[in-house]
């Protein structure tokens, strides 16, 4: 139940946390303020079995607040250097929440280059671990700026993360280990649950219309007869976010002007 006003960032955190519901004892990797806070929220509210790291080389027995650590060092429960992270992730027991630069209708993602591959308009990071992540374990997506620049028509410029595109796979067979979870954006929540893994709109955030979401997406999305409104974060979730996970309000810097979650 929600009695307090909440921000768009807090709404997104609560929705992002949902990607780890029912996922069991997997490594939750969330990169960036909202995904990371969301992983902590999932761990504290409905999936106490999640594994989490400090972002460096240790597994933590408790979620840590974002920003400089003032009180004490967090309780460590294990060692997780990069070599072990690859051992773990190739085994599949991980669910990552990532922030790609481009996403297409197949769930293929790009964080490498935008534009021509030889002389790109924008060189970003490189493929990083996206190819291995995508074929090994579940991945969900957070997009803070839902637009046709992110959700592109056609394919992404450089396929870093594999998706449900049969033409990209040997013999046209998408492997069973490929699983793309939800996409949480500043406009709504989507997944790849329609026929043939087409993108479907699960909910729109309060004050956002279905037409707005479709307009901001470079490919057709499957829409239900009545699209639900994304539920508000509960008071308990808001307390965990504000007091425990992000007391310095770094989430307030994610969206310009830190808008309210209910834009009606």
């Amino acid at each position, binding site marked *: 139940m929600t009695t307090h006003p909440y921000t768009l960032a807090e709404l997104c955190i609560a929705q992002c946390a949902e990607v780890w519901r029912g996922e069991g004892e997997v490594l939750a990797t969330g990169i960036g303020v909202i995904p990371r806070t969301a992983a902590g929220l999932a761990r504290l509210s409905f999936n106490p079995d999640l594994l989490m790291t400090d972002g460096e080389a240790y597994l933590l027995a408790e979620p840590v607040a974002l920003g400089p650590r003032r009180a004490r060092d967090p309780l460590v429960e294990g060692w997780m250097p990069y*070599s072990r992270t690859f051992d773990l992730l190739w085994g599949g027991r991980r669910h990552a929440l990532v922030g790609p630069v481009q996403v297409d209708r197949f769930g293929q993602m790009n964080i490498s280059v935008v534009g021509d591959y030889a002389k790109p308009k924008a060189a970003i990071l*490189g493929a*990083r671990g996206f*190819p*291995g992540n995508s074929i090994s374990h579940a991945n969900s997506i957070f997009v803070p700026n839902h637009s046709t620049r992110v959700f592109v028509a056609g394919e992404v410029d450089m*396929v870093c993360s594999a998706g449900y595109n049969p033409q990209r796979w*040997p013999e046209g067979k998408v492997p069973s280990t*490929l699983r793309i979870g939800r996409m949480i954006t500043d406009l709504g929540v989507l997944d790849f649950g329609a026929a043939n893994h087409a993108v479907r709109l699960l909910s729109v955030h309060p004050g956002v219309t279905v037409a707005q979401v479709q307009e901001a997406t470079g490919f057709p999305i499957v829409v239900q007869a009545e699209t639900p409104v994304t539920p508000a974060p509960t008071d308990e979730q808001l307390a965990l976010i504000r007091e425990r996970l992000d007391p310095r309000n770094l989430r307030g810097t994610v969206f310009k002007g830190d808008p309210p979650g209910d834009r009606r």
Partner: protein
Amino acid sequence: MNKKMTAADVVAQLRDGMTIGIGGWATRRKPMALVREILRSPLCDLTVVSYGGPDVGLLAAAGKLRKLIFGFVSLDVLPLDMHFRNARQAGAFEVMELDEGMVQLGLRAAAMRVPFLPTPVGLGTDVVARNPSIRLVRSPYHDASTLVAMPALRLDAALLHVTEADERGNSVILSPDPFFDDLMGRAAERVYVSCEQIVATAKICNHDRARYQPFERSVVTGVVETPFGAHPTAGVPGYGIDIDHLKEYNAATTPEAWAAYRARYVDLPSHDDYLAAVGGRLRINSIPPPVY
């Protein structure tokens, strides 16, 4: 065997056109003193294998790269390295862009002296489609699945930065993550290890610390003492990432600014001069370890 040498000795043993692996990860434990020595030398036409940070950016800005074999280049806290970015956008060097795990497998294959290691990683993506030199194989077992044959990444030389070493090449990495320095060492013909301090064997090799050794001394060709040799990247325990310096480095993108950066921090007579230029040992020592 005494393997102690200077950074200049190391670079004198490298040749134009070599394939060089650089240890560490992004902004952590990069052998930056050795990289700056390459910038001061005429060495060129290099193929570099790296989990890239400012090592790649410096080499790109100085026009030393013929080819980059990589999964990413990042300054972590500042996500984009502008020197890498500008050179990549200009098409200044060839790229073999891989998944981070494929880089590891390529190094491991070289270390094992096999031509490739099979993996599903890369299937369905452009890291295979954009790298025609990477072939697929079919499993000879009942599954008959199609796999990527990640080719061995053989290195002519590896440049690594460790915490301590002795003159014989025994070394320890006391920072929280050893990364893939061990595989780079084994994948390379010649392995040059810079360290915070050269110490006596007795200090390196007690039973508690032996587990922090990345490889045995027979892997190592040369040992260079470079206190704060990973700066501006982190050399934990000891010093964190010098974010202020990385910001200055990352902003030096115009030809004039880059020339000024080089003059101030690279084209110096000695490593001691570098340490003085970046604010001195006390200042570096006071940089806190990073919090991620």
